[in-house]
């Protein structure tokens, strides 16, 4: 099985090399379809053999030799509850993405598909890597193909979009690289006999305790990188642009898989590595998440371009994921994970459908459509399901994720206020508003443009690629436990482990002298003072009353 995992990760890369030797466009398409389908089928045994009760360690673990000379940086891949679903989502979406660009990509076909396949290996590596350094390498491996996908096969404003996307992401990740090096040395000194290490098992072990001040800075550096990638509200400006200008396949991969790398990294690295800082900054991230939910929804409402609307709805949905992750309880975190999958499915489907409309009509403006349902009944059904899933209609997948997140946030001890949930719920209502309104303007009403009368309904290939997504949208909606069970035990363990380690570090920190801002942020010294107050004053009071009572009683007794 260890070998199988590696085969699944590298098969697409092998496919990309294979494409170098194929000249005919048709063969290129079939080869990539075959490779991605084989990847998906080969990944299924990984899912079926997965033991959901194992926590705290990954399964199918491959541990290589240190390859950076004197540093203990190893090739480590494996899957656990956090990554299993996202890994499967990635292998599942790949053949669909290949099919979706079957007829829309006509120039440099081999280049296009090899970029998609390299991207696939990078994404699978990101989800399977269990070494921070390997994670970084796989992540960057996804950036290069994405840069070309948007830049070569994108829309009119593609160059601005792709350069902005690339530089924006890289700034955050380079700063993270400095923090990563710091963590590597610190971990080396604490848990690895002084040898630089970024092994996930070591950097999340209880013996690895970063001081509170260090944690704050490192957390902010890592958080900044992940905020850009997710993207969280003030760092989101690259996303609508990149989404809109990317070709359909690029938008789908970006929405379904690439954005998940940010949220996944938060769960995998940000929270476990810096537990105290994560808890201290949780309200801030939750606020940004809520702002993202409402802001994304409001901006989506006024969009004239369908693709931009879907892009902004992404920001709104990812706000939910962020909120769920920083609520620090199992319900919300489970909701966040399933919401990542849901967003991948429903937003992926929406981008594919918008792409199909664009291929026929060469426009994405809502005003150019109207009454399309008459010409394209099959597409209308698919579009409706994806729309309703995106809104979060009970019975479809979107509801499950959002509901779990809202319930978890409502009861969150770390956030300590139900207002987060109340405001976030507003986002669901707004979603219904902008999605349904868009759907109505595009699909229903009279046919106002003559060009639309000639639209043909989707063909067998297009139906075949949408139906699997629809099946999973309904399946997750009806039986969510079939999916959530994979992550449940691991999430529960991870949150408990994080709490315990946070408490351990806080106790050790209480004896140290901290700067004033850190004391306030982590509430260290005031709490200590309060506890000593309790210890010194209250027992005395109680004792005195008791003594008084005792004296009183004894005098009474004596009198008797």
């Amino acid at each position, binding site marked *: 099985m260890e070998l199988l995992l590696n085969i699944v990760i590298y098969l697409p890369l092998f496919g990309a090399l294979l494409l170098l030797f194929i000249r005919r466009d048709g063969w290129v398409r079939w080869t990539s379809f075959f490779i991605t389908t084989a990847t998906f089928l080969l990944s299924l045994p990984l899912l079926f053999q997965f033991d959901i009760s194992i926590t705290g360690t990954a399964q199918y673990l491959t541990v290589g030799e240190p390859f950076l000379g*004197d540093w203990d940086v190893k090739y480590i891949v494996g899957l656990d509850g956090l990554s299993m679903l996202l890994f499967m989502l990635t292998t599942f979406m790949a053949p669909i993405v290949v099919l979706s660009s079957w007829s829309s990509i006509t120039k440099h076909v081999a280049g296009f598909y090899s970029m998609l396949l390299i991207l696939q290996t990078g994404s699978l590596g990101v989800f399977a890597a269990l070494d921070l350094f390997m994670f970084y390498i796989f992540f*960057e491996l996804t950036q290069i193909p994405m840069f070309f996908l948007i830049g070569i096969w994108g829309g009119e404003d593609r160059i601005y979009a792709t350069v902005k996307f*690339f530089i924006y992401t890289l700034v955050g990740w380079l700063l993270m690289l*400095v923090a990563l090096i710091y963590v590597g040395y610190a971990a080396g000194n604490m848990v690895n006999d002084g040898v630089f290490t970024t092994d996930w098992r070591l950097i999340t072990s209880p013996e690895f305790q970063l001081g509170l001040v260090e944690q704050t800075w490192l957390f902010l550096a890592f958080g900044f990188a992940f905020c850009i990638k997710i993207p969280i509200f003030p760092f989101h400006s690259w996303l609508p642009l990149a989404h809109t200008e990317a070709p359909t396949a690029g938008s789908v991969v970006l929405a379904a898989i690439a954005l998940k790398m940010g949220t996944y990294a938060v769960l995998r690295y940000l929270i476990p590595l810096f537990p105290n800082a994560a808890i201290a900054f949780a309200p801030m991230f939750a606020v940004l998440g809520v702002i993202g939910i409402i802001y994304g929804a409001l901006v989506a409402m006024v969009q004239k371009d369908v693709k931009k609307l879907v892009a902004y709805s992404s920001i709104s949905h990812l706000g939910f994921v962020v909120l769920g992750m920083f609520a620090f309880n199992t319900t919300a975190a489970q909701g966040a994970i399933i919401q990542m999958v849901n967003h991948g499915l429903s937003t992926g489907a929406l981008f594919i459908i918008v792409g199909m409309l664009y291929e026929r009509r060469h426009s994405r403006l809502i005003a150019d459509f109207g009454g399309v349902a008459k010409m394209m009944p099959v597409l209308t059904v698919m579009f409706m399901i994806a729309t309703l899933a995106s809104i979060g209609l009970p019975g479809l997948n979107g509801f499950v994720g959002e509901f779990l997140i809202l319930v978890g946030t409502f009861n969150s001890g770390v956030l300590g206020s139900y207002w987060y949930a109340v405001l976030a719920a507003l986002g669901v209502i707004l979603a219904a508003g902008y999605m349904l309104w868009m759907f109505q303007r595009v699909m229903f009403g009279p046919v106002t443009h003559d060009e639309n009368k000639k639209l043909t309904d989707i063909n067998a290939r297009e139906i075949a690629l949408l139906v699997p997504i629809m099946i999973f949208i309904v399946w997750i909606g009806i039986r969510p436990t079939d999916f959530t069970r994979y992550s449940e035990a691991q999430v529960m363990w991870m949150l408990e482990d994080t709490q315990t380690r946070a408490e351990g570090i806080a106790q050790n920190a209480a004896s140290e002298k901290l700067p004033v801002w850190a004391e306030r942020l982590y509430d260290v010294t005031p709490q200590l003072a309060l506890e000593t107050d309790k210890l010194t004053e209250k027992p005395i009071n109680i004792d005195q009353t008791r003594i008084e009572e005792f004296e009183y009683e004894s005098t009474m007794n004596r009198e008797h």
Partner: protein
Amino acid sequence: MESANELLTILPLIIIGAAGLIVMMLDAFTGSVRMAYYVTVFFSGAALVAAFSSLFGPTGEAFHSVIVYGGTSAFGMVLVMTGTLFSVILTRDYLEKTGTHIAEVYSMILFASFGMLLLVASNNLLTVFLGIETMSISLYVLAGLVRDRKQGVEAALKYFLLGAFATGFLLYGIALLYGASGSTFLVEIAATENKGMIYWAGVGLLLVGFFFKVSAVPFHMWTPDVYQGAPTTITAFMATASKAAAFVAFILVLSRALPEARDGWGDVIWLFAIFTMVVGNILALVQDNVKRMLAYSSIAHAGYIMIGLAAGTAAAYGAVLFYLFAYTLMNIGAFGVVAYYEWHKGYDFTDVKNYSGLGFQQPVMGVLMAVFLFSMVGIPPFAGFIGKYRVFAAAVDEGLISLVVVGVLASAASVYYYLRVLVQLYMKENETGITLTRPGTVYTAALLLMGLLTLYFGVNPGVLTDLLGSFKYVGY
């Protein structure tokens, strides 16, 4: 026998020195450029093999301790010979296509290379000076190789005047250090007790001389003009071999002559590293000419390398040597591709706009350019990333976090000008209407080898980092 063994320790130097004379004679007697080329390639290859095998040999001092061999020096020789051999291979096609293929080029390259080899083997400030002079004078000639080209002559003159000044500073520094310590041997300078005004003035002037040679800001003014004016493959030679040699000599001098003074000059290099990174990257952002852009980018790279020198530990020096290796590979590669595009329209076909839509014509060249540029940006899985990563890591370990943050932000800014080339190559329609011809097999193979090595040492750097980690850098 003792002296014969000593000669063996400088085998690459002997090979290259002999080759330089042979090529000059060949040119005078036969006038065959082709033969000069083959002889040059043969001897450079032999010197590369000799340098490579000395990597695993013993280390020590020779010729009354004016020369060191093995370890850092051997690696420096490998860098210099890699740069020389591949620049020579690229030079033939380029000069033939641009119509200035003359045999003197090869003898000048060999003499410059001789100077560089001497420089990386020096254990005495006078050897340093000899090496730098031999190298520089040959490079002045090479810069002005195309005599009827205005930029070429300007480049040569500018290089010569500024270089002469810099050498003056260097020599003055050496003289002052001799005055303070009574010796020009690196180790004896380190042992001096007399660290007064004269000593520090000497150290300062010595640093200025080196800063000029590695083109650190504010001693970088010559770099863009010379890089642009010189024939492109000669630029590749200057940018890789001479810079690598200067940095290796810098490491030798810093680690052996000034180990105690680390606290003193560490801060100086810290400051100049920041200047170099920031100014190099900012000026590169506004360049339209690709050669000029690469010149400023090489200034920026010098800045990143100086982060390692500022850290000044054995790990940092190892990281710097790795960086120089990666830098040599990707710069030869990038200039090679630039030279290839350039020869289709003669000189000065190097504006970034000229490259529009060329990436898909002759895809091998386009892909190689992408590999080299991404490696320069410092993106895994290419060697440039590992180099940057190790240099930054060594500095973080020494607590120079603010310096590393500046470096990281500067390299984030650098992404823009590297991507600009790729945007033109791949994302614009062809505007110049030129059709690329197939490059020669040897030319392609040389660049392909550079690309594969860039990838290989990005994926499996352990081979090299283990070797570099085994060197003794400080006070041996």
